[in-house]
């Protein structure tokens, strides 16, 4: 299969910060690829390089067989880009926004209606409403329609679900899956680890570097150490005591439980004994399988 995106040793610095350093990545055509990382990881900068808005300092990136620097004019009509910020005209109606972007890309709503029917169908009852008066989820859907209206080969979505409610996020991912099934290559970035599982493959990114590239399952399997979820009545004292324990490697808060990584061959019984000795009450300990966030935390730890 042809590679949709090839990134070779790309670096980009702003003033005194190295936003992207030495990133290499290959994304195949038809993939739904996730770029996962916290704010400031360099995701947006990498996106802007790929959509021809920024020139890399070093390295080379090819999208759809076209160099993002040399062939940017030929490449621009072939990609769909949805920036992280709300990038529609709030004073234009839903329909006016869509038809504006359609005309600018040399097409009409009617010509590519097929592609956006699922999504636009939900917006159509509000087509005369100003885009600025839409809810967050609706705005996101409209922005997606606008990015799709010219039938791009590759779709770049920079943090599309940031600031959107949980139900809309779920719907949004379902839409991405349906688009992906039609053969559209999608590169999506998100700071939410729980969305990683929705992608075919993911790259974990931090401080401008790629820490790991694999399927979501593969990333989880990178985590080899024993992992326990621990809960007790006094969470604050629990985290203090566990971090001080001789068997502990790392201990982070994950919702109502603490995720505890230990040295090999430590059992739940050992931990329970230690905590009872420290007068903890209602102690609940269970061995768990690592999630993507655990892997990411461990990788971050390794890369210091």
């Amino acid at each position: 299969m042809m590679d949709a995106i090839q990134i070779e040793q790309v670096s980009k610095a702003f003033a005194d910060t190295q936003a992207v350093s030495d990133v290499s990545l290959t994304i195949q055509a038809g993939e739904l690829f996730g770029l996962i990382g916290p704010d400031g990881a360099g995701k947006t900068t990498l996106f802007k390089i790929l959509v021809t808005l920024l020139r890399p300092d070093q390295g080379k990136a090819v999208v759809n067989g076209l160099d993002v620097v040399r062939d940017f004019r030929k490449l621009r009509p072939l990609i769909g880009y949805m920036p992280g910020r709300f990038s529609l005209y709030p004073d234009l109606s839903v329909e006016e926004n869509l038809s504006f972007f359609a005309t600018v890309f040399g097409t009409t709503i009617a010509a590519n209606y097929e592609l956006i029917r699922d999504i636009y169908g939900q917006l159509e009852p509000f087509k005369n409403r100003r885009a600025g008066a839409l809810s967050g989820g609706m705005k996101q859907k409209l922005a997606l329609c606008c990015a799709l209206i010219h039938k791009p080969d590759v779709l770049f979505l920079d943090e599309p679900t940031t600031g959107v409610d949980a139900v809309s996020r779920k719907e949004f991912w379902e839409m991405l899956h349906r688009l992906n099934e039609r053969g559209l290559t999608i590169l999506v970035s998100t700071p939410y680890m729980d969305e990683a599982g929705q992608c075919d493959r993911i790259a974990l990114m931090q401080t401008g570097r790629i820490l790991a590239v694999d399927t979501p399952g593969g990333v989880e399997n990178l985590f080899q150490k024993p992992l326990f979820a621990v809960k007790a009545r006094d969470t604050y004292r629990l985290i203090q005591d566990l971090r001080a324990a001789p068997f502990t490697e790392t201990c982070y808060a994950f919702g109502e439980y603490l995720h505890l990584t230990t040295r090999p061959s430590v059992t739940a019984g050992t931990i329970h004994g230690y905590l009872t000795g420290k007068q903890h009450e209602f102690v609940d300990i269970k061995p768990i399988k690592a999630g993507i966030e655990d892997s990411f935390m461990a990788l971050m730890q390794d890369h210091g």
Partner: protein
Amino acid sequence: MNRFFAFVKKEFYHILRDRRTLLILFGLPFVQVLLFGFALTNEIKNARIAILDLDHSQHSRQIISRLLSSGYFRLEQQLDSYKAIEPAFRKGKVKMVVVFPARFTAAVAHDQRAQIQLLADASEQNTAISLTNYATNIIQSYSAELNPAGMNPPMQLDVQSRMVFNPELKGAFVFVPGVMAMVLLLVSALMTSVTIAREKETGTMEVLMVSPLTQIQILFGKVLPYLLLSFLNGCMIIVLGIHLLGIPLNGSLALLLAETLLFIFLALSIGILISTIADTQLVAMFASLLIMLMPTIFLSGFIFPVESMPKPLQIISNIIPAKYFIAIVKGIMIKGVGLQYLWKETLVLAGMSTLINAVSLRNLKTRLG
């Protein structure tokens, strides 16, 4: 071409749907013209004066009635002695006192020479100068009538001044071209730079840049609606000036409109230049106001005459576009001259546009960084 028109249409939506933009576009010129035309005028009407007539003759009565019927003066107080003059000024109501000395008529008859004293309150120096000028003119025209033609007494030196082009010294003649320059600059440069900066701020510029639209198309799409609206604005000010403020149009209307278009083009170019530098609406606004509006008001000769500025400011005033435009508008409307007298100013404006556009083109980016 289709996508360019879609862009222009979108731009019109932005303008027509934003009440503030509409207000600035069409309310501002109206208010400015009325404000400068009527309220902020340096003409003086119905100034309160006091008269000390120690002569009580036909001559003094004649002169007094001419002064009071001129419309410039209103009698506040009749004084009866020199001592009353100072308290009259002190009270602050009286701006000028006209004194006819006791032997006024006798002096006219015997010496062919008589004096009238004009005392003006110079705490407002411009008012004082204008009032004494008005009064001097009225008195001199009376004395001219007294001397039949060809019978001028020997050795009488008479200073005669005539106000050319604006004999009534109407303030509107000075202010309207200035207001026109200011409003056009404000609307064209400020609004375009702000609207371009807005797209950068909201992130829509990124999407536009990734689209097949070129930067030039985006800029022209931004500028075209403002070019049309500014031109409409310019016409509105001209119509207001002629019909409401009574400014003559002695020269060619076609030339006036062509020069207005040239000036709008220059103002829009400045707006584009600012927008290539400014990334936020706030920066664009401050840049427009600071580098254009203030110098236009203070250095273009709009309010303060260039000739009375210190030398360094006079030199700086040469790079203020409004200075040339004001000269052109005054030339066409009031003096009624044509291009043969105004080609130099026209050339300066055209040259400035070319230069600014060249710089903007160099600054244009097809990318963000």
